């Protein structure tokens, strides 16, 4: 894929990582204690935690790892974007320089095209001459060979 399309894909993937990260964090966040008046649901958590053994504890225990992983992904994607930007083959000179180069190449192409045409015509002429001579020689051969 060309570099500009890769850059566009990278921008889109940065956006995707961002909204996926925020969505995941918002969905999986453990509840926060709003005020000291409301008791922490430690009693509610203790009873079901005893019944469901470790299967439920893993996501909540692993929760602090998620922002680290997601932010690492985001930074990696941003670094890759920077690397792609550095790899852009932007030849300085802008539009006019490019147009001038195109005009030069067009002239050179025309000159070469005319020379090619000339060579081609000369070669075809020689080919026709050779074919004619060959035909004459073959006819002479046929005429000289008299059936005995």
């Amino acid at each position, binding site marked *: 894929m*060309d570099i*500009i399309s890769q*850059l*566009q894909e990278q*921008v889109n993937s*940065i*956006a995707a990582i*961002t909204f996926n990260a*925020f969505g995941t964090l*918002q969905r999986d966040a453990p509840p926060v204690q709003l005020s000291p008046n409301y008791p922490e649901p430690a009693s509610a958590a203790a009873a079901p935690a005893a019944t469901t053994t470790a299967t439920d504890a893993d996501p909540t225990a692993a929760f602090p790892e998620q922002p680290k992983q997601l932010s690492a992904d*985001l*930074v990696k994607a*941003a670094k890759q*974007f*920077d690397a792609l*930007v*550095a790899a*852009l*083959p*932007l*030849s300085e000179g*802008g*539009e006019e320089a*490019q*147009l001038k*180069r*195109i005009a030069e*190449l*067009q002239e*050179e*192409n025309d000159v*070469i*095209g005319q*020379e*090619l045409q000339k*060579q*081609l015509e*000369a*070669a075809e002429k*020689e080919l026709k001459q*050779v074919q004619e001579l060959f035909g004459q020689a073959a006819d002479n051969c046929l005429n000289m060979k008299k059936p005995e």
Partner: protein
Amino acid sequence: MRVNHILSFFLAPCRRRIISEARNQSPSIFDHPRFPPLKRRMATATYPPPPPYYRLYKDYSENPSSAPEPPPPIEGTYVCFGGNYTTEDVLPSLEEQGVPQLYPKDSNVDYKKELRSLNRELQLHILELADVLVGRPSQYAKRIGDISSIFKNLHHLLNSLRPHQARATLIHIMELQIQQRKQAVEDIKRRREEAQRLLKDAFVTLDGQ
């Protein structure tokens, strides 16, 4: 024309029986129409008839100029299926889309620098959004608007690189073509010389005999 269309629609299942009888075969079980009888049939569509101006091209093979020319290409704006389209493909500027332009509007903008600085801005805004969501969750809308305008600026910059890419591709193709033509000229010269040499050798051989 419409009568022909309706007749062909109704005659389709009968056609097979007629054809098989014309071929002097007894109508077999495969000739029964696969669809239910007419009154219970759903509306199945046949192909539309060809446009009626085919009759103008009756003598095209004898006299190509007796038929009308194809219509000229459309210029300017045209309406297609109720939508307005324009024939000029131009990238609309950001102001026309109502998005604030975050990079300096200069004729020769340094793409790499601007892309990198926009990337950094984007990262900072994402961090700000994370902070806002933790502290003041109700004020997310402005941050999201900022982030989306940064993205739109990024994409607009990348899209404005496309004409440059097109010209660079054209230059590359022309250089390749010039190289190929030079190669072809060399080849033809070489072959001609070889042919001349062969003829001369053959001449010398014939003379020697």
